């Protein structure tokens, strides 16, 4: 018997009991829709995380000053001012696994333009920082080495700052006052969005490092920096770069073995890896729930197929008397079960896609429906059909034709 004929017979059988076929499919529809929606939401979450990784820049190590003890009180990380611009230069020059290093100083204060004012973060840095964080300018130009060397009074604005001071007007070339010191706006940075910690990265103003050290930050030594951002040459070299930085700084700061270093290093990718892992765990959990609903749906299919075999015992008898082989009968019922799950699967995929879109619109949560998830769902629905359809189909095929013909 050819496949098209088998398909036709199965379709007719499903059409005969439309309501029953639909209700049987419902379990699969819900299961597959859940799988699709879950995978879309999970993929969306991972996409956000990878975007955040890109937003702080990849393969980054943060070097922070260590704690200091004053009068028996330990001040915590960053309490001591031990890192200098020269440490940054040395890391870049002497660590082979390091691509770039950018010393930064950080302050906060009021900036004023005309009658508008805004309190924000003020960062003094070198051109390398924008390269490390892969942060381009939307308009104007970025800070260049020359600006740092000459301690030029120029600044770059983050999008949030520009909106609050200038509204929709063009800020380039305007003079603003940062902590009462006049600066010329040379550029507007691209929008960066939220950091993984939820901070608005666009709410900041950037000035050349030396300008900040001279004019904006009060320090007991002129070339102190608040942190050094280091970029490794590749993800594989991240660990090695961290070791090299540690070794170099220990030497430069004369930290002998057993003594506590006056700085610390932090690997940002690790933090994000944890975040990614937790989103994966969430996906896995949802996947388990979805699989359970698929199994329940499959059992529903098996149940209805068994009822169907009993109801159609006489039909099976007729077919056998007329010359159907056992395999023909087996294939007929198996096709019916697989057709049920496949139609249910396709409906579920569509429903899941709609559901994911609704979620992303309603909760402004990004979703991503991949071809991969669709093919997995499709494959699974077929497998469920074969798995749960096999027993009823075999039962049909093993009927004795004489008894089947006599069945009322």
């Amino acid at each position, binding site marked *: *018997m*050819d496949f098209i*004929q088998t398909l036709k017979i199965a379709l*007719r059988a499903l059409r*005969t009991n439309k309501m029953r076929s639909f209700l049987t499919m419902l379990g699969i529809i819900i299961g597959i829709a859940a799988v699709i929606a879950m995978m879309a939401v999970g993929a969306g979450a991972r996409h956000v995380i990878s975007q955040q990784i890109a937003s702080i820049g990849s393969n980054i190590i943060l070097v922070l000053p260590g704690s200091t003890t004053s009068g028996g009180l330990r001040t915590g990380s960053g309490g001591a001012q031990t890192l200098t611009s020269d440490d940054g230069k040395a890391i870049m020059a002497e660590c082979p696994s390091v691509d770039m290093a950018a010393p930064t100083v950080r302050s906060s204060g009021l900036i004023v333009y005309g009658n508008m004012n805004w309190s924000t973060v003020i960062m003094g840095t070198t051109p390398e920082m924008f390269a490390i964080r892969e942060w381009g300018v939307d308009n104007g130009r970025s800070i260049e080495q020359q600006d740092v060397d000459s301690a030029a009074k120029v600044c770059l604005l983050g999008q949030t700052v520009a909106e609050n001071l200038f509204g929709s007007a063009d800020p380039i070339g305007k003079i603003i006052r940062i902590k009462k010191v006049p600066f010329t706006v040379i550029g507007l940075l691209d929008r960066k969005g939220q950091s993984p910690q939820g901070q608005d990265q666009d709410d900041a103003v950037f000035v050349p490092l030396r300008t900040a050290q001279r004019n904006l930050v009060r320090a007991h030594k002129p070339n102190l920096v608040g942190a050094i951002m280091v970029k490794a040459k590749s993800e594989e070299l991240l660990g090695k770069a961290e070791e090299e930085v540690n070794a170099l700084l220990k030497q430069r700061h004369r930290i002998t073995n057993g003594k506590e270093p006056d700085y610390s290093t932090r690997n940002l990718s690790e933090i994000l890896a944890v975040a990614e892992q937790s989103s994966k765990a969430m996906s896995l959990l949802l996947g388990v729930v979805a699989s359970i609903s698929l199994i329940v749906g499959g059992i529903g299919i098996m149940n209805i197929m068994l009822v169907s075999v009993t109801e159609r015992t*006489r*039909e099976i*008898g*007729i*077919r*056998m*008397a*007329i*010359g*159907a*082989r*056992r*395999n*023909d009968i087996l294939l007929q019922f198996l096709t019916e079960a697989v057709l049920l799950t496949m139609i249910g699967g396709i409906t579920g995929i569509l429903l899941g896609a709609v559901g994911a879109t609704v979620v992303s619109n309603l909760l402004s949560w990004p979703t991503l429906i991949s071809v991969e998830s669709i093919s997995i769902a499709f494959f699974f629905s077929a497998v469920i059909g074969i798995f749960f359809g096999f027993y009823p189909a075999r039962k049909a095929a093993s009927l004795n*034709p*004489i008894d089947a*013909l006599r069945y009322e």
Partner: protein
Amino acid sequence: MSSVISLTDISRVFVMGDQQFAALKGISFDVTQGEFVAIMGASGSGKSTCMNVLGCLDIPTSGRYLLDGVVVGGMSTNQLADIRNRKLGFVFQGFNLLARTPAVENVELPLIYSGVPPKERRSRALAALEMVGLSGKEKNHPSQLSGGQQQRVAIARALVNSPAVILADEPTGNLDSSTSEEIMTLFTTLNRQGITIIMVTHEPDVAAYAGRRITFKDGLIVSDTH
């Protein structure tokens, strides 16, 4: 004329627990090509068991069954299915058509299982329906046909694969007397065209249409008008 069917010392014993029941106790008869045979007998006489054996639906406990030159015995279920498909045509008391399926598709059914391509299938099914006088009804579902017409569809289905023998099990059992007469006339006409028919019945006036009557009693043949 050559034998289409040859039964030699056929017995069929059913075992239920530790009890044995012999439905057929060693019967032998031959049917030659073009015969119209009526098998008669009271219920429990063994005629239905004999029909099941003839129809390759049941396997005899002992004895030899030769159908159209082929020894039926020790065959696999697939081989038996193919024999039923190619050499036999069944007509049942309850018509046994597939519900919600047009007449022509019911007739096509045996051809589907023997792998005849769709176009040829349709033309042969239409020809078979014409033979039983149902041209124009091919699109009707069984529920839209009278009992007599349904039985004609069943006969067309039995004929469509040009079988060696048509086996009819109480073909008029569910029909009124005038419709029964129509169906028996159709059988007679088909028989005149050279088709071998074996029919089980317990009605003497239906059996009278057959050229030969074999009567069963308690698993044995008690009379054969051969």
